[in-house]
């Protein structure tokens, strides 16, 4: 099995994530889609590490995971605080700032 398929899978995941950000309304789900995109990037990194025969890509994946986790925590905190104020986690309801 060639590693290329992993690359294609990653690209598909990335696209699904990007589209998900656009079409979902729940902030948590939107955020999960972003995580999907990050993980697609991770998969790409690891695959290229395999193709290139170097470890760098895998180490990078570690860093990305940690950063992503930190992002999750920050994101959850923000979403939670906005949910407590508005009783809604829909991104479409956060619409006071415009024009």
């Amino acid at each position, binding site marked *: 099995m060639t590693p290329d398929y992993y690359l294609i899978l990653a690209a598909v995941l990335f696209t699904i994530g990007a589209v998900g950000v656009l079409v979902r309304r729940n902030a948590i789900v*939107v955020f999960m889609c972003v995580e999907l995109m990050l993980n697609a990037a991770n998969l790409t990194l690891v695959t290229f590490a395999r193709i290139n025969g170097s470890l760098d890509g895998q180490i990078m994946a570690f860093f990305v995971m940690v950063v992503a986790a930190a992002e999750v925590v920050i994101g959850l905190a923000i979403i939670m605080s906005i949910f407590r104020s508005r009783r809604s986690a829909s*991104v*479409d309801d*956060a619409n006071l700032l415009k*024009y």
Partner: protein
Amino acid sequence: MDSITYAPATGALSSMWLLVAIPALSATVLLLLGRRADKWGHWLGVASVLASFVLGVTYFLQLRGIDGTGNKSLSVDLFEFIHIGDLNVSVGLLFDPLTAVFVLLITGVGFLIHLYAVGYMSHDPGRRRFFAYFNLFVAAMLLLVLGDNYVMLYAGWEGVGLASYLLISFWSDRPAAATAGKKAFLINRVGDVGFALAIFLMFATFGTTNYADVFNGVLASEAGQTVSAGVLLAMGLLLLLGACGKSGQFPLQTWLPDAMEGPTPVSALIHAATMVTAGVYMIARSQVIFNANETAQTVVVSIGALTLLIGCVIGCAKDGIKRVLAYSTVSQIGYMFLAVGLGGGAYALGIIHLLAHGFFKAGLFLGAGSVMHGMKDQEDIRRFGGLWKYMRITWATFGLGYLAIIGIPPLSGFFTKDPIILAAFNREGWTGWLFGSAALLGAGLTAFYMTRLFVLTFHGRPRWQKEGEGGAHAASATDAHGAHADAHGAAIARTEDGRDIQHPHESPWIMTVPLMLLAVGSVAAGWLMSTSVVDWLTPVFGEHEEGHAHLTHTQVTIATVAVTVLGVALGYLLFRGGTSLVEQPARTHLVRAARNNLYADRFNELVFELPGRLLTRALVWVDNRGVDGIVNGLAAAFGGGSGRLRRLQTGYVRTYALSILSGAFLIVAALLAVRLG
């Protein structure tokens, strides 16, 4: 022409930065001290300009002391302003004969007008602020003429624009003043774009913005064809765009008449004598660039000729005393553009006309201010008449200015305008006839509308007395008045009933003394200028070469004087009996009483006025709708486009994400296309 070098300044001249620093310092002090300086601030303002004037005279004398062969262009490098990569702009000043005459004009006339303003603004609560801006203007204007590179010129350029904007909207509670200020600023910015691009182009072509290096580059390229003619043309036209914006030339002229909403000393100093001539200065200073490209010169001449005619014709149609003078300024600057566009010896002619104009136009504006001061800020010449009995000094000085501007010998306008007309006629080819005729026609029109202005204001039946015909007049007078009276807040109450205007009075000495001095200047300067100043300017513009001649000097002089006299006669005949007010008298016996005049009027109307009026109306329409329309339309387009685009910012995160994703998609696609295509 040989290459251009500037000698380092020595002696007193090495301190020429003081010229700019003194008024700038005074402006800072006045602004920073705030109300604490209210009592004496105006005298500080006057003193700083006087100090600059004295310095200017000192420098002038030093420059004169250099004998014939010595380098009369002295520069001093103060400090490095911007140095990045190849770009090196220093704060450097240049004092050469051209600068010298400008410095004397700015500080001399500026001093007189400052003095006048002490009286004129005496009732205004914002007098200190006014003087601060006024000093700021003088500093910026001096920087403009003293700079030894285009960036300095640009800095002064923007500075005078800013001061002009502040001063036009000085009485900011008047909507008209605020609008006029905004308009002036915006139209000037349009011109500034041209100027800025010209500077970038210069830098890209010659790697410098110093006058000497740029000019030498142009000269070298003429010899070696290193710089394409297109680049030089673009440079010239971009500079010209800037000059047109600042000097109120076609098609950017509309802001200048509106700028009269500012206090009269401002109109006199900034919008007549000095700032609006900055465009002429720039073109004269950049003569090397314009000389190198004939097309650019032709464009300058055409714009000058066109503008001078537009200004004259519209001037005939306006009734506000300052409006007429404003259009006459537009038209006179047209003459100057015409002159500097002609090139060669005509540069000096443009400059001397500029100087003469500085004197008589400042005098005329101050005279107009004096009239308005005595007439409780009435501005409509149809409501004046017979004022000569009440304000003799104003009448006499205004009269001298009037004779000077229309070019009656031996006053200054004759000596300066006449050679320009001659030079225009003697341009090569058929264009010489065209531009010459335009200039000649302009002279006639100038005589006509200035006569109208003068006669209506000072002679004939007084039309400001109410004589019981009542309400309508008083009300409309108050209306016209109300918009202009805020400066003299106290005056409003007294003129509410329109009665007080029955006693016009002469202005105080502090206003009349400058008037008299300026009148002396208008009378005496002409002859002086046409000889010695032209010689004085020779080191800058080179020797005047006699070109080929369509007409001789005598022929042109006779033609000019004839046309002028014709204009005066026509104006006098038409308007000696006054003019109708907008509000036609309702009572029939008044109509009957006027009948004798009426036939004459109708005849005049058919034969002389109607075609003229149609043309005038058309031009006024173009002026208001055309250019203004484009400016306003552009503004509206930006505003509307902005308002509509704004709606794209829906506030929905998902729309934003869509924008980002689409942008991402486009960028990826574009890069792939570039990479693979």
